């Protein structure tokens, strides 16, 4: 059923349709509307047989999820940014224990400086945590990925993070197609745990493992993610059969057939990029887009297959590995390194801390890339004046003061007018 609603609410609806049994969350922008939504549905009896727990921290949220999942309950939580970092220890624990928890991450930057706006630093910081990470391009996809995530998680006994851009998606009202309960039930069977705390068949879960077996345990986690590379497209196929639309999968190519330049990105920015690409295509530029949906496991084969005929890739990512550069870009390069494929690759850091990524900037960027006139590492719309001013200040003064506050002062003349 088509509805015009907020992304957060759409996700809440999707979670509700998945018949969750335990939901726990601690509020953090921009995740709040999701948990407010599911919380209200539980309280109102719209979601039955479900316990909604207001916990005292994200660390507790993930911990409660660990407990309930290990006891065989379908478990959901959501977080963002600092919240994700606050629960990190438990995040690793959940995946290490193989507990099929589904968690929405309403992607937001990580401080300091504190910043509530969107980028992907939070999820990406957990790329090695052993969680599956799926990135939604639209609210429709966010909704659909949650349904797929429960099935994926439970089949593999691995937790899944559904990543959606904070504010840009979570707070955007747009058209979504809400599936029926019958459709979801047909797709998602009840949770059959692989391991469970059961008084009639007691087991010890979470024992200490020493050097004699730890590598094997870690390898098996990797092996499961490799299985996910097969399972994710399979589930997307099943999903299409029941729901009638393409959603999920590993990667999503757009106009890449004969593209000389392929832009690779994740999340909602793909829409702006596609609009830009369409305009450039209209102008005769051979450019395409590859959206990465599954960041973990990273679909090396699928990415390579999609880009192998291109001359160059421009990896545009909303995250930044300080001291080296791109993260998604590094993974993309791994996909073709050693395969005898000659592709130029450019890393573009964009949209950090909610900086708008505009078509105008993208046009300029892609045109430069098309001329191979782009530095290997580019910061989109970086205000060099501000940066240089601060660097100058630091060169001159020992006590140059806090950088972020200086920069804010420097840019304050332009800070007020737009969001």
């Amino acid at each position, binding site marked *: 059923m*088509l509805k*015009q609603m*907020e992304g957060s609410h759409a996700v809440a609806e999707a979670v509700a349709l998945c018949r969750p049994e335990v939901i726990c969350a601690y509020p953090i*922008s*921009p995740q709040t509307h999701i948990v407010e939504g599911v919380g209200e549905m539980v309280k109102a009896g719209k979601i039955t047989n479900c316990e909604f727990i207001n916990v005292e921290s994200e660390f507790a949220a993930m911990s409660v999820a660990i407990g309930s999942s290990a006891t065989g309950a379908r478990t959901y939580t959501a977080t963002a940014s600092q919240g994700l970092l606050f629960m990190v220890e438990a995040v690793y624990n959940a995946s290490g224990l193989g507990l099929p928890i589904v968690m929405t991450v309403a992607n937001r930057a990580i401080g300091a400086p504190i910043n*509530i*706006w*969107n980028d992907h630093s939070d999820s990406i910081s957990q790329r090695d945590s052993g969680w599956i990470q799926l990135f939604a391009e*639209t609210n429709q996809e966010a909704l659909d990925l949650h349904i797929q995530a429960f099935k994926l998680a439970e089949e593999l006994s691995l937790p899944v993070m559904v990543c959606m*851009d*904070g*504010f*840009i998606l979570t*707070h*955007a*009202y*747009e*058209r979504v197609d809400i599936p029926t309960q019958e459709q979801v039930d047909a797709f998602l069977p009840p949770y059959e745990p692989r391991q469970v705390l059961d008084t009639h068949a007691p087991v010890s879960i979470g024992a200490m493992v020493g050097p004699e077996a730890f590598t094997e345990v870690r390898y098996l986690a990797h092996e499961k993610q490799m299985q996910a590379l097969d399972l994710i497209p399979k589930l997307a196929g099943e999903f299409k059969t029941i729901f009638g639309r393409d959603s999920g999968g590993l990667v999503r190519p757009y106009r890449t057939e004969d593209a000389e330049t392929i832009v690779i990105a994740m999340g*909602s*920015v*793909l*829409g*702006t990029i*596609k*609009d830009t690409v369409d305009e450039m295509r209209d102008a005769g530029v051979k450019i395409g887009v590859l959206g990465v949906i599954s960041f973990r496991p990273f679909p090396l084969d699928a990415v390579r297959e999609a880009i192998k005929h291109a001359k160059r890739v421009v990896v545009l990512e909303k995250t930044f590995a300080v001291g080296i550069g791109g993260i998604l870009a590094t993974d993309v390069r791994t996909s073709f390194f050693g395969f005898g494929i000659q592709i130029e690759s450019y890393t573009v850091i964009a949209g950090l801390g*909610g900086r*708008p*990524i*505009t*078509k105008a900037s993208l046009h300029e960027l892609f045109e430069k890339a098309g001329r191979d006139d782009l530095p290997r590492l580019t910061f989109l719309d970086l205000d060099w004046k501000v940066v240089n001013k601060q660097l100058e200040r630091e060169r001159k003064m020992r006590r140059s003061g806090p950088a972020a506050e200086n920069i804010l002062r420097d840019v304050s003349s332009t800070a*007020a*007018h*737009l*969001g």
Partner: protein
Amino acid sequence: MFEVRIHGRGGQGVVTAAEMLSIAAFEEAHHAQAFPSFGSERTGAPVVAFCRIAEKEIRLREPIMEPDALIIQDPTLLQSVDVFSGLKKDGFILINTKSTFEELGLADYVRDWPADRLCTLAATDLGLKHVGRPMPNVPLLAGFAALSGVIKLESVIMAINAKFSGKVAAGNIAGATEAFELVRARIESARKEAAHA
């Protein structure tokens, strides 16, 4: 694609207005995308919300920098915020005020504007009158429907019903209807004046 930017202050229902606008457009089978300025603005702080309306899927995620229309929920913002930034030439401007454009000191800015694209509306009073609260957003939305013709009053009413229920919905519908009629009357008289001119 038709792009609307709504300016106001925290607590004035700016974001709700954008959302309702998107719902109204959706009810008319358009694609619509509403989103706030993604801030953690508190009551009283300047707030911006956006709404795009189109006939196909809206993929664009950048803020609206060159709006087709502006709704200004609080005229005091005119002093502090560059609300007109990027406004397309001859774009729609609806301002919540008892004053005129001239009284607001905007005579120069709108000198070349078509008169039927400009309107002021004492929306706060309408909110007080019909809902009992100084909420200008719904009357402005209805006024915007009348001003721009992008959506119908019926769609605004549907959006009201999607967001509110009971007495509040009824009050809002009454306020919306009155606002719609007020603005339509003004636009029509403006057009007549323009035709006479």
